């Protein structure tokens, strides 16, 4: 009786308690033989935490995330087309030249990130780090440029619906760029852990995907905010 109570049914060949003491726990070492290292995204688990799952989960997350931007874009378009008060008094429009340079830097950084991923795919770890670091630098340049632009603008967050939209859209996107740079830093740090990329590069792939996503969002944002200025 007592023995049967101790969990003789946990599985074939299971010894009940010894198995318990050995820690057949979600983090059990034997249950994650084929798990790649680069899956820091989205709380990787032990059992079942394959790189493929992580990528699936991450793509689902990105799809959902893109809808926040879609909602914000929709709000911007509705306001721009229908608001009786648009630009705050004294504001003529946005300066395009510097943001355009920023845009070119950010968009080309996507290509650099791709080069980094290709280098990693070919097991050229040194080149990967170089290209990856360059991507991070370009992303940081973009954030700094954005900050410079913010400080020079003659309107603030509370200046009408235009000010509110401008700062919310660029700020929310900027947060994504900063997150992207931080995630890349994490991947770079992981690249120094021996044998970390032996089982695949799910983490790098996911961060690369995130970076392309942030770029595409920016292209739409740039078109909406800077190119479409006349009403």
């Amino acid at each position, binding site marked *: 009786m007592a023995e049967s109570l101790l969990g003789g049914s946990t*599985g074939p060949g299971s010894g009940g308690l010894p198995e318990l003491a050995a820690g*057949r726990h979600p983090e059990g070492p034997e249950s994650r033989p084929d798990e790649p290292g680069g899956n820091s995204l989205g709380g990787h688990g032990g059992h079942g935490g*394959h790189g493929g799952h992580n990528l699936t989960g991450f793509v689902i997350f990105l799809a959902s995330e893109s809808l*926040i931007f879609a909602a914000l874009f929709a709000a911007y378009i509705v306001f721009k087309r229908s608001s009786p008060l648009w630009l705050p008094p004294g504001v003529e429009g946005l300066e395009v030249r510097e943001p355009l340079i920023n845009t070119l830097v950010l968009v080309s950084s996507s290509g650099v990130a791709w080069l980094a991923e290709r280098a990693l795919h070919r097991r050229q770890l040194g080149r990967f780090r170089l290209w990856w670091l360059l991507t991070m630098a370009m992303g940081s340049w973009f954030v700094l440029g954005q900050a410079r632009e913010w400080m020079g603008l003659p309107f603030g967050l509370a200046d009408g619906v235009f000010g509110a939209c401008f700062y919310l859209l660029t700020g929310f996107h900027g947060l994504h760029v900063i997150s992207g740079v931080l995630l890349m830093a994490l991947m770079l740090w992981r690249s120094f852990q021996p044998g970390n990329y032996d089982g695949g590069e799910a983490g790098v792939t996911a961060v690369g995907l995130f970076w392309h996503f942030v770029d595409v969002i920016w292209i739409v944002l740039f078109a909406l905010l800077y190119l479409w200025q006349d009403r």
Partner: protein
Amino acid sequence: MSTAPIRFDPRVLRAPHPVPGAPDNWRRFFTFNTDAKVIGIQYIALALLFLLVGGLLAMIMRGELLTPPADLIDPTVYNGLYTMHGTVMLFLFLFPILNGFNNLLIPPMIGAPDMAFPRLNALAFWMFPLFGVILMASFLVPGGPASSGWWAYPPLSTQNPLGLLVNGQFLWILAVAISGVSSILGAVNFCTTIMRMRAPGMGWFRLPIFCWTALAAQTIQLAGLPVLTAGAVMLLFDLSFGTSFFRPEGGGDPMLYQHFFWFYSHPAVYVMVLPVFGFFSEIFPVYARKPLFGYHVVAIASFGIVLLSLIVWVHHMFTSGTPQWMRHLFMVTTMLIAVPTGIKVFAWLATLWRGKLWLTTAMLFAMGGVFNFIFAGITGVMLATVPVDVHVGNTYFVVGHFHTVIFSTITFGVYAAIYHWFAKFTGRMLYEGLGKVHFLLTFLAAQLNFLPMHWAGLMGMPRRVAAYDPEFALANVLASLGAFLLGVATIPFLLNLVSSWVRGARAPANPWQAIGLEWLLPSPPPAENFEHDVPTVISAPYGYGLGHPLVADQERYEARLQEA
């Protein structure tokens, strides 16, 4: 059972997961545990606690409404009560309890050891107590809790008369935002698990309907919640940082908030009702001993509901100055929803038809839920009609309609699920007698509570008022009596849960002779379900009375349960 004292290795009592037949280590429910079955019970237990909180708020309101004048509580307090009642019931009771069932049911039903991302799962759970505490704390801040209704429409929700940064509305938005993040993390997890971790042989059309409906519901979360989040962020900025998104004086538009809010919050009802449709589809075949009628169509109809749910939201805004073409368009799309839901209802009726009905408590709640749902569906089509909605919009008719959905259908389904799967996940049987008392009281009280609301609404009683015209008195007295009876009805339920878990009869692996992977596991299932011995599914689910096995080598799995 022998009378000899039962001896346990002390390590069993400290196990981080259940060990079949051993006493439960309740401490594990208070830890950052990554086991989906622990997280599921954590969700359900905490959500039931908030059901009591929300129910208490409702009973205070119904106490106020016993008499026409606002004599029991101040009308301002009443505003806070209905706001918090709605918010607690949706965000702290129904969403979390259904996430609890997702956690308990999805991995065993598809033969997976756990969720795809166990740590993310635990993180998503622990946000629940966090936003629960934030929302409850709003009762204590100066100015009281949010009082603009659970819709939080501006300009009402952007008023900040005391000028404090931390006010009731601020905490409300914060809590809803954290709840949204938690739900999105949960949705990513549930979708990935169902898509990638099914047992060998379990193609899409061998997937249990509950998993279909859970996937459909989580798809809505992923599509709708981001939009609500965008609206909530704008609302928070308007409230706290002086922006003008929804302020006409700064060029903003309060109507846009309504669009953002309902784009999510109407489909949110389907997020709650779809898993309950899943419960009905699981429970009817078991107790009617027949295969589910029209399995394929019922599965696909879930996604029909998803698609339609994303294009119906304006029906909440028929009286908000919406253009006529929008009213017509959304009236039609809203009525179309009746098609996939109707398909499901007829499939359930056909499943019951000429079955040998086994009237357990779970079956009674499921049948009662469908009965109420048919009524709510009829009033739903009425409300979708623009002329009717213009007449009864913002009256008690609407309140009656959605309480029949939210309580009399969804919560009935949740009760049915608890009575059906309690034995599986706790290893103890619930007392059927107490269960039937619970059902009888709940069913009668729900009708007494919500039917008179329709009547009061048709007579023209507006919702969200603490005082009303004496001509509505009879309907309100009846509804209040129903509400108090509903409160009483939870007593046998709670008594049943606690006493059964502590000293109920031990549950066999398959007390209802049900067919499904979860019933091939011991009660409660071990930490990683089938571990490395995942069965291969060889036939469609719900094969009642057909005589063919569900999985390859079924005798071996059943024999193992016999040993235990």
